[in-house]
């Protein structure tokens, strides 16, 4: 009975840990994809800056609802990371959320942005994901 209760507590802890880490990654991916989608709609910022100046470029970016939703998602991800770091060791939370974000971005870019994520880009995502994890060792 006691052993069963201990196992239950342990499992809940592991579940909570990964729910918070996945929440950080999902909100980060949403932020990246929304921001990238907004920038694609706005167009080449170098050209806009050449035509309308820096103020015009800033206005073009900040008046995009998609961009603002992206920034909101990034802010949520930041606070989710702060919450995660208060419960989970940084040596697990930081690399795990960063690695999941890299892989999640590859999936989301293919699914929502219709990017051509070919074998080369999948390999890059996997290599970077593994590399980020090893850097934390």
């Amino acid at each position, binding site marked *: 009975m006691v052993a069963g209760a201990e196992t239950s507590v342990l499992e809940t802890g592991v579940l909570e840990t990964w729910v918070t880490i996945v929440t950080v990654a999902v909100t980060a991916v949403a932020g990246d994809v929304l*921001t990238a989608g907004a920038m694609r709609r706005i167009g080449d910022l170098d050209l806009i800056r050449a035509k309308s100046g820096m103020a015009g470029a800033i206005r073009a970016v900040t008046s995009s609802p998609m961009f603002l939703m992206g920034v909101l998602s990034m802010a949520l991800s930041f606070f989710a990371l702060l919450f995660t770091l208060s419960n989970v060791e940084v040596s697990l939370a930081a690399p795990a959320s960063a690695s999941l974000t890299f892989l999640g971005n590859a999936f989301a870019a293919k699914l929502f942005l219709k990017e051509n994520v070919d074998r080369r880009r999948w390999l890059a995502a996997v290599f970077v994901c593994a590399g980020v994890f090893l850097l934390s060792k």
Partner: protein
Amino acid sequence: MKHTLSLQQYMVLLAVMLTASVGDTLLSHGMKQVGPVSVTHLGMLLSAMRNLWVVSGILCLLGFFASYLTALSWADLTFVLPSTAFGYVVVALLSKFWLHETVSPYRWAGIVLIVCGVGFVANGPSLTLHESKHPAEEPAAAGEAR
């Protein structure tokens, strides 16, 4: 059709890599001087804004966000993101050769993997072109050879 980047666009990607890593390092150095900030003394965050290292770090990170958004306006997300990851390599190399910290074999292995990952995408096209029924909605420069 393969898109290649202009020298100016490579400079923007270089700025993405450097400003993020240098900005984080400056913030870290500054916050160590400011000391630990607790939830009950959030006013210390305001005093941190008087620290030159913290202000420099924030300016660097503002530069990062501007160059990151610029890069996303003419390149795919899956092309730009590995470039940002290269910043981790810059931090590790700075810590080894500037701060003289020990870099473990795991970290060297991680650096090699990230460099390989960045190399994979750097050789490929930077932007996916979509067939559009409404050409006017396409980004202005999407059709230009880069």
